[in-house]
């Protein structure tokens, strides 16, 4: 019992503020946060230029916005920025050089993994498998060069899985065709707590956290082409497996103790406390995310198919609801709040969807004025905080408001 209590306390995250968006797809990787507001008719509040490319989403802690990018002819210059969320003024910038390989598909970049934070530290991971931890004031806390440590950890198309903090463990997915691991790293020291051998296959999906209920210890859910694996974030022990395959691009989403996995369409799974395989609640290929992650809002799950059609289904039953064709193509995932989804296509067209309308409806649009004459694309997922939306493109960080 004491052991269980200690486990639970150790795994408790540092308290984050209501307006914080600490990782890819925000608190609990849910793509939504209760206190945020998405404006129906967004306008640009400010823009902060970036010296390099990237598809890593911004994250927000307090009034600080953190974003990464990569620059140089081989994208070997890795940047971590901290901006003032009020006005886009730069608080600090740190730059390191890639120690791992920087080859990637031309569409993606080395700043592909969204950084994450435990509220005290920021962890920036790049496709080169360079991993740096800073305090919120930009002081370097520790460094890792994961390709220096494990020389065959790389992907010639680029790595993209975003790290996740669970308690005192930074879960770092560095899975690929060759030397393939997920590493649990001590947030305080950057040292390995555990290293788990994973399927030898390229994997761009990001881990999520699952809890049976608010009082239970968190379980890290790793995803791969084989399926899902529940892992104890403290020890790295495998707790359970689901072996029916899953996407290697689109990530799962968790709501009320159920995992909605991009597996054979969407498969809703209810893990068991006894370590047995999760129970299937429902499965539907009517909502079929290809590369983009689903989001849950107001009792429905939403996902884009490869044709840019936003499909929805009831989360309790999987029953398909309305579909809405938006202007694509999309790479970034939608996020939602106050009955609205914000979806940004690759060309920088911001589209606000009213999900409370009987058949879903486009509530507003805004074209970001991307860099003229460039091939600039928007591949990232927006971040929400208060009444603002933060979007990063290949040349800038943008704050949208009402």
């Amino acid at each position: 019992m004491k052991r269980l209590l200690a486990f639970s306390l150790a795994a408790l995250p540092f308290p984050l503020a209501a307006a914080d968006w600490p990782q890819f797809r925000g608190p609990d990787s849910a793509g939504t946060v209760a206190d945020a507001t998405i404006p129906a008719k967004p306008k640009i509040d400010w823009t902060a230029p970036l010296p390099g490319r990237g598809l890593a989403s911004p994250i927000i802690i307090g009034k600080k916005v953190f974003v990464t990018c990569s620059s140089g002819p081989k994208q070997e210059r890795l940047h971590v920025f901290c901006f003032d969320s009020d006005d886009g003024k730069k608080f600090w910038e740190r730059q390191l050089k890639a120690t791992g390989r920087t080859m990637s598909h031309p569409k993606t970049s080395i700043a592909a993994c969204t950084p994450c934070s435990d509220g005290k530290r920021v962890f920036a991971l790049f496709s080169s498998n360079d991993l740096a931890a800073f305090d919120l004031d930009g002081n370097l806390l520790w460094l890792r060069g994961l390709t220096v440590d494990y020389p065959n950890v790389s992907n010639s198309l680029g790595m993209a899985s975003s790290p996740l903090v669970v308690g005192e463990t930074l879960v770092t997915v560095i899975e690929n065709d060759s030397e393939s691991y997920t590493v649990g790293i001590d947030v305080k020291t950057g040292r390995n707590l555990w290293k788990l051998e994973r399927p030898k296959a390229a994997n761009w999906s990001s881990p999520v956290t699952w809890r049976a209920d608010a009082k239970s210890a968190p379980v890290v859910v790793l995803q791969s082409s084989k399926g899902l694996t529940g892992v104890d974030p403290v020890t790295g022990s495998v707790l359970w497996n689901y072996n029916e395959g899953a996407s290697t691009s689109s990530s799962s989403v968790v709501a009320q103790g159920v995992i909605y996995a991009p597996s054979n369409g969407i498969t809703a799974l209810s893990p068991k406390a006894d370590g047995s395989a999760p129970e299937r609640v429902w499965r539907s290929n009517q909502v079929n995310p290809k590369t983009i992650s689903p989001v849950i809002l107001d009792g429905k799950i939403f996902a884009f198919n490869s044709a840019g059609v936003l499909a929805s289904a009831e989360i309790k039953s999987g029953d398909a609801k309305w579909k809405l064709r938006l202007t694509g193509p999309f790479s970034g995932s939608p996020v939602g709040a106050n009955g609205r989804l914000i979806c940004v296509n690759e060309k920088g067209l911001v589209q606000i969807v009213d999900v409370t309308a009987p058949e879903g409806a486009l509530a507003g649009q805004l074209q970001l004025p991307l860099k003229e004459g460039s091939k600039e694309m928007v591949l990232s997922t927006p971040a929400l905080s208060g009444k603002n939306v933060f979007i990063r493109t290949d040349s800038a960080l943008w704050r949208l408001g009402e």
Partner: protein
Amino acid sequence: MLSRLIVLPATIALASLAPLRAAVEDSVKTLAATGREGSGNEAASAAWKAVVGEGPHALLALLAATGKSGPVTDNWLRLAADAIADAALHAKQPLPLAELEAFLKDTKNADAARQLAFDLIAKADAALAEKIEPGLVNDPVQELRRGAVARLIAAAKARTGDDAKGAYLHALDAVRDEDQTNEIAGALKKLGMTVDLAKHFGFLMKWDVIAPFDNTNQKGFDTVFPPEREVKTDAEYDGKAGKVKWKTVESKDERGKFDFNKPFGSLKGVTGYAVTTFDSATEREAELRLGCKNGWKVWLNGELLFSRDEYHRGSQMDQYKMKCHLKKGANTILVKCCQDEQTEQWTVEWEFQLRVCDSTGAAILAAK
């Protein structure tokens, strides 16, 4: 008496500087002690903050330690130097630019350290960096050359006819980066001159090749087939579908790509080998740089340099850089290239390109 009065404060001042220097040295030593899998991180975290707090007078010590303990340690040092520079510039405090410039100009200093020195100069005084940059056109650091080469290309673009040709050829002598080389070669082609890119980059074009051995279920990657035990180009072995013998081939590709599909047919689930002899004029350090989208292994004089079992995720020039030591005279380079069983159109390639160069990417050509 007067002289004693003058000497005394100076002695006190020097004495008071000594602990400062020692503090910086201790911190830098701690940063330089970081190693694999985060070893030394705990102590380095405190040392980093301490050395950054010392301000610009710590920069030279950070530079002196850079390039000596591995790339991750270099990042600890670089991030400290960068943070010092940012804080100093914010406080309108000068950086020791003359010392940084002198450090940069001394090519005995480590490559990574000299690059850092240039970056600090550029951050503090863009005009000074602009002034220095053209002089770096033949620098031993590949990245430092780039700006100077860009200037030569820009100058060549402003010229016409033979003047332009001469200017582009001058740039071609200096260039090391692939994208800039392409730009120069493209411009020269328009001016009626074809650049031998294979020679420029140092791609190895002539190979003895043998295939197919098995790679069903990708098991051939770790199977030791006869060419790994002996390189005997007149030998015959049992292959995947009968006897196999070595063939001599020469790549006609301007980037030195050798395509196994050409002599052996479009096969899947197979393994091939290519061997060549590289005659080095001297004993020296070098790099073998490989581009390959198949599973591969590379040996130099019987020593495995690196291997990777990734298939069809992409290929590019200099995708893998392998540091090596060439002996004077004949050096045997053996490449194992494995093709998997995927059937998609984009998985047809069964090929590699390999070149011998120095650390700047300059071709090392065979002596004969």
